[in-house]
C-alpha cells in the first residue's frame, strides 16, 4: 500500500454492557493487516476497558480484555490513556493491565504500550491524525 496514514481509535465506552468496545477491537485487529500508523486512545468510561482483573463470568459475556495484551504483536503499540478520565473515576494507572510490546530495534526489550496523557495533550494527538474512528 503506497499511502501510510495515522489511524486513531477513540474508545469512550465501558467494555461490557454495550458492544462498542468489542466491535472497536475487531476493527483494530482487522486494521492491523493494513500496516498503517495505529494509535488507540482511552477516555471517558473507555478507560475501564483496560482494567486489570476483569471477570465477566457472572454477566455471561465474552471477556475480550486479554486481547489488548496481544496487540503489541500486531504492531499496535501506542495506547494513550487520558489522565483526567482515570482520576474522575477514582482510578490510577496501577488499576490497569500491564500492556507491553517487544521492541525489535532494542533486542526485543519489553516496553510499556500505555502512555498517560493529559486532556490537552490528547486533543493535540487527535488533531495530528489522518483518520479518527470514534467508538
Amino acid at each position, binding site marked *: 500500500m503506497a499511502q501510510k*496514514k495515522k489511524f486513531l481509535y477513540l474508545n469512550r465506552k465501558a467494555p461490557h454492557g454495550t458492544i462498542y468496545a468489542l*466491535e472497536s477491537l475487531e*476493527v483494530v485487529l*482487522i*486494521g492491523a*493487516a*493494513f500496516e*498503517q500508523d495505529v494509535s488507540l486512545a482511552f477516555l471517558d468510561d473507555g478507560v475501564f476497558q483496560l482494567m486489570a482483573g476483569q471477570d465477566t463470568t457472572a454477566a455471561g459475556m465474552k471477556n475480550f480484555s486479554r486481547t489488548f495484551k496481544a496487540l503489541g504483536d500486531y504492531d499496535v503499540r501506542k495506547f494513550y490513556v487520558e489522565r483526567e478520565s482515570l482520576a474522575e473515576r477514582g482510578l490510577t494507572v496501577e488499576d490497569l493491565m500491564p500492556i507491553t510490546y517487544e521492541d525489535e530495534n532494542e533486542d526485543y526489550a519489553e516496553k510499556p504500550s500505555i502512555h498517560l496523557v493529559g486532556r490537552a495533550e490528547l486533543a493535540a494527538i487527535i488533531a495530528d491524525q489522518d483518520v*479518527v*474512528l470514534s467508538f
Partner: protein
Amino acid sequence: MQLAIVVNEGPYTHQASDTAYHFTKAALEKGHGITRVFFYHDGVNNGTRLTVPPQDDRNLQKLWSELGEKHGLDMVVCIAAAQRRGILDADEARRHGKDASNIAAGFRISGLGQLIEAGIEADRLVVFGD
C-alpha cells in the same frame, strides 16, 4: 473532495443515520465524491429491507437505497456486525442455514477491511454515531 462515511447507529433510535444521510446527500449535491458508506455497529440495521415504519414517518432504509441507486454509492454493511444482528444476504443465509435473507437494495455485505480501506483512500472519513 472524496469523503468516506461511517454510520454507527441504527435508524430511529438515534439521529446518527438521519444526519449521515442528509450529510451525504448535501455533499453529493455540492459535487463531492463519496468513496464509500460503511455501516457498522447497529448501523447495519439501516440495511434491512424488512423495516416498515409508519406511513407518516421517513423510511430511512428506502432513503439510503434511493440515494445509493441515484449516485451509484458503494454502501457496505459489516459482515460480522450484520450477522450478530440478523442482517443477511442470500449467500450468507444459505451458508448459515437460515430460511430468509433481508439485505436491502443497494447495500452489500463485506468485511471490516472495507472500512480501513475507505479511511486510507478518502480525503476525509466522517463518523456518525452516538
